[in-house]
């Protein structure tokens, strides 16, 4: 019971932050509903009503898009067969599919923040990791190796590629003091160009396409599905993300390496006095972080999409920052927040199709979530509740002054 109360207290600020952000999102939807707002002069109540109706339409579509349409679920119960069951559970499985890379990159962000590194290069690390998986996947097309072996090799390559992409800013910070915010963002752009370059070359590009799209690898390598029903994409990548969450939690709190990472993150000087290598922790933390993000990219490209495109990430790196902060940088929290954001992402896409409210609104909502989590005073003022101070990691990512101002 005490544990439950603790959980509720911890979830209060994140919950209210998401709620407030969604309300702000609704305000934006209403304010940009020019069709209905144009009528405000002649019929103010009607115009506003219609605009608010638009919000309910949009958010409603988001809800059914993420969790399923009650009508279809009813049909599946009445007439259970592969097709009806698949239609009924497809939204919720898509939510889990969307949550998978979010959890991977969310863990990546959490581990880097714990090391005092503000990694906003999740996008780049994810896509470079996906490139690594694609190179191995496509390269082993005619090898005749079993799918699972190719999968393992591809994921290993993804981890290495992503890890390297994360290691670079860690190395630069440790050796030269170059601020990781700038270097990781620059590496996002460079990573995108590298992937574009690789995809436009002859070896990876899909036959007969002039677009930057790789060959579809699902014919010879795939992540095994959890549920084998038509149009259900949920695979063991999701399970892998949960396993990694447990592994990260174990690493951070049960091993001396994790202890060193956290110590260096909070106070690099004290860590040095205690005989640890703060620079080493920065590099290790960033490499692990990049490796996790790359792993997410690997599972995404081998599993859910089957092929690499240059817009594979779709802003997962940005959302992962919001997610990790929302989770209080706790791996278990990352899983919970990842599921929530997976639902928002899946639902947001359905909202875009059904009600014409662009998916990109989510980025705005995510930004607001970060703001409210980082400034709980705002939540306190708006909702008149007593809230705890933010976790120290969130209050200040770099508890000591950066070696070089940005």
């Amino acid at each position, binding site marked *: 019971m005490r544990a439950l109360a603790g959980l509720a207290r911890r979830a209060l600020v994140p919950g209210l932050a998401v709620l407030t952000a969604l309300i702000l999102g609704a305000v934006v939807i209403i304010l940009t509903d020019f069709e209905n707002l144009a009528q405000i002069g002649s019929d103010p109540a009607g115009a506003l009503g219609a605009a608010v109706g638009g919000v309910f339409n949009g958010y409603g579509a988001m809800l059914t898009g993420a969790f399923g349409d009650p009508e279809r679920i009813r049909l599946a119960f009445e007439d259970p067969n592969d097709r009806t069951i698949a239609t009924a559970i497809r939204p919720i499985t898509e939510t889990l599919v969307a949550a998978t890379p979010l959890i991977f990159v969310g863990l990546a962000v959490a581990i880097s923040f714990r090391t005092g590194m503000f990694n906003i290069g999740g996008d780049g690390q994810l896509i470079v990791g996906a490139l690594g998986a694609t190179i191995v996947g496509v390269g082993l097309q005619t090898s005749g190796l079993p799918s699972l072996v190719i999968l393992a090799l591809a994921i290993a390559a993804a981890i290495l590629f992503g890890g390297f992409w994360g290691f670079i800013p860690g190395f630069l910070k440790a050796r030269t003091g170059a601020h990781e915010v700038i270097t990781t963002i620059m590496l996002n752009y460079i990573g995108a160009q590298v992937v574009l370059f690789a995809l436009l070359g002859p070896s990876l590009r899909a036959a007969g396409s002039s677009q930057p799209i790789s060959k579809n690898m699902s014919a010879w390598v795939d992540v095994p599905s959890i549920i084998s029903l038509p149009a259900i994409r949920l695979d063991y990548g999701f399970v892998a993300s949960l396993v990694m969450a447990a592994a990260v939690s174990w690493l951070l709190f049960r091993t001396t390496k994790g202890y060193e990472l956290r110590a260096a993150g909070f*106070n690099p000087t*004290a860590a040095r006095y205690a005989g640890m290598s703060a620079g080493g922790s920065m590099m290790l933390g960033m490499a692990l972080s990049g490796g996790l993000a790359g792993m997410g990219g690997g599972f995404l490209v081998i599993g859910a999409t089957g092929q690499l495109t240059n817009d594979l990430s779709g802003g997962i790196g940005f959302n992962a920052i919001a997610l990790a902060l929302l989770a209080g940088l706790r791996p278990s929290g990352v899983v919970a927040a990842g599921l929530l954001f997976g639902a928002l992402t899946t639902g947001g896409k359905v909202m875009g199709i059904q009600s014409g409210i662009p998916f990109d609104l989510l980025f705005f909502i995510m930004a607001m979530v970060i703001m409210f989590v980082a400034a709980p005073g705002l939540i306190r003022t708006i909702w008149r509740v007593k809230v705890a101070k933010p976790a120290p990691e969130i209050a200040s990512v770099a508890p000591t002054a950066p070696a070089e101002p940005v």
Partner: protein
Amino acid sequence: MRLELREISKRFPGVLANDKISISVDKGQVLGLLGENGAGKTTLMNILSGLYKPDSGEIVIDDQVRVFGDPHAAIAAGVGMVHQHFMLVPVFDVVEAVALGAEPVSGPFRAFDRAAARNRIVELSEQYKLNVNPDAKIENLPVGVRQRVEILKALYRKSDILVLDEPSAVLTPSETEELFGIIRSLAATGTTIIFITHKLNEVIEVADKIVVLRRGRVAGTADPKTTTRQALANLMVGRDVELIVPKGPAKPGEVVLGIKDLVVRDDRLELAVQGVDLEVRAGEILVIAGVQGNGQTELVEAITGLRTIDSGEITIGGHHVERASPRQVSDLGVAHIPEDRGRDGLIAFMTVAENYILDTYHREPYSRRGIFNLKAVSERATQGVKDFDIRTPSIQTLATALSGGNQQKVVVAREFSVPVQLVIAAQPTRGLDVGSIEYIHRRIVEQRDAGAAIVIVSTELDEVLAVGDRIAVMYDGRIVGILAGDDATLENLGLLMGGAIFGEGTAA
């Protein structure tokens, strides 16, 4: 101007920092405000300089009641403050640093009229014989000069009341003498001066009147002509203090720490330690005394593996450690209590238990092959909290929630939680209350009697005299003299700290 503070009270969460404090000082008088760390001196002065607002009470200057809402009002009323930590922009030159906030301007864009400011500064510098080069960059000036720049800053604002907060903390005895000369001449020209310190002999030397604060209240007043150090000390701590730590005679054994011709550079690559030779034996306490900034910090960092050395030898228990890492040094059984425990010795946002294992976490029983034994960690930490009487709600409390004394106890408990052959303690009692100081000293003496070699770096003469079996005085990167604890007096220590080199005969 005559200054009077009437019944000033100021409360911070959990502390009544000032409790109805009333003091007064006449024009041209030097008031010595004496008190321990935490007695409320600095709070009172921040109220006087407009940084804090008092909860109640009033400030009266020449029979006029003043309310200082911000530093501006205080400056306008003629109160000038010389802060303990200098408030000078390091990259500015003296003219810019002094004029900041009271800049003469010219032209429509309020251009800084540097020439006007410079003229005035040169004038003041000559008038009060401060001898400051107006075009020097602050960061290139020695501390003594920086302090004169601070005084210049107050004079530049036409302050009639000058408040000096612990002005001698970073000065050599001769610089302090110079400062006293300036204070006397300022007082002679009619400036009212409040001199805040915790050093007994200084108030006796320079003040016309002494007020002693204790736990936020006025504990008493004294006349410097008739009072004694002991009387003032008793007023300050509220009971008879033992300025001597109870300890038996040292029984020096084998040499544990050996240093030969050590040369170390500081962060700016200047020579900070210039050829130090030192031997510390098992079972003795060697105190390294000296004014802050004479190479003690770099010496300690060199011994503990935190700083690479230029040349020389360091051995610990016979092992050469010139190139050892902090981990290797610590694994030789060296306890290091760092100078700035908040920054270097603790991780504020980790728990007491996690801090308790900060430099031993990689050893058994805390961990094996990189994996923690959390049960062992919490058992040992609980034991440490009990043994060292650390006041904390639990071992899962964040270190930042503890008081300064308890934080220091966490550090000491941790360092003494494993067998040690050498203890390096830099300023181990800085900022602590009397009770904690005694406790920490007792623990250190225990380690000595158990056979460890102890090195304490201290700038506090009282501490130096109380705990040292031998006292090495450091000046300008060199050991300028080593005294036996019994031979040391305030006078000969003061001379050595100021750079006067004794004959070899006094070395132990």
